């Protein structure tokens, strides 16, 4: 199915959880802030919330160093 990720169309597995999809991008879900259809998700929701056709995902990924 197609979803929108940071404004770009991407392919995602049907009913993938947020955590599964973020992992397929090569990111550790714990290092990513996720907004799904305009709502910032709590960390516990990453495994519980499933993506739907056409949904909009905003991802902000962090890398270490400070």
């Amino acid at each position: 199915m197609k979803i929108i990720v940071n404004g770009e169309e991407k392919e995602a597995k049907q009913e993938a959880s947020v955590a599964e999809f973020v992992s397929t991008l090569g990111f550790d879900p714990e290092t990513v802030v996720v907004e799904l259809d305009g709502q910032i998700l709590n960390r516990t929701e990453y495994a519980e919330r499933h993506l739907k056709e056409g949904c909009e995902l905003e991802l902000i990924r962090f890398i270490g160093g400070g």
Partner: protein
Amino acid sequence: MLQVNERPCDFFPGLRLEDLARRFKPEADVFIVNGFPMPPSTELNDGDSCWLIKRGEHISFAEMEHLLYARHTPGVQGKVKESVIGIMGLGGLGSVVATALARIGVGSLLLADYDVVEPSNLNRQQYFIDQVGLKKTEAMRQNLLRVNPYLKVETFEDELTESIIPLVFKHVSVLVECFDGAKMKATALRVALTLLPEIGYVGASGLAGFDDNNLISTRRIRPNVFIVGDGEAEAKPGQGLMAPRVGIAAHHQANQVLRILLGLG
């Protein structure tokens, strides 16, 4: 009417700074007009605020404060003086952000770190060899108060977590994320967006190594919420953290804090 060292003084056209010095303080060798150092021959205008100071003499709180901010853009000082800034992490980012904000005269800093100063920190962090082993919060407090004795410094020495961050920082004007670890960086932004929506926020991601200066940018996520960095350069084996590039990112953060305080976020 003029102000001379905070006292009123009659104005007449053609009056020069050196005339005031002769009358009020002949030994003065620093002359400030409206917050800016000027030569003694400067002709004054009605309404000017003048400070006549003798270098090295014991000076009052008001005189010192005036001198410290003599190079500020006018109008900045009043706004930053009222602010409380929270800084999460006092490493290469946080120690530099705190120092810059102390120098511009923010009113109050709330500094959080549970770590001690180690020798490996000194390649980029604003501590000294004789502070190795001290808690970073304490070492930073000492250093900041040497820069700006009028700063109020509060510290928090336990580990910050998702549940503690909103409790500790709920009263700050702007919260600055200066963590080292990526998971805490993400956690802090999530907390800020969900639980601290009224507070300005400046985070950082991607500042290791010695890649191009200009890849480091300040990205606006929301009104008053920003992330600084190149988004790519991770601290990892083979790519270290060093003062120049971490400092670029830290000063992006500090300037963004200032912009938020001035209503430019």
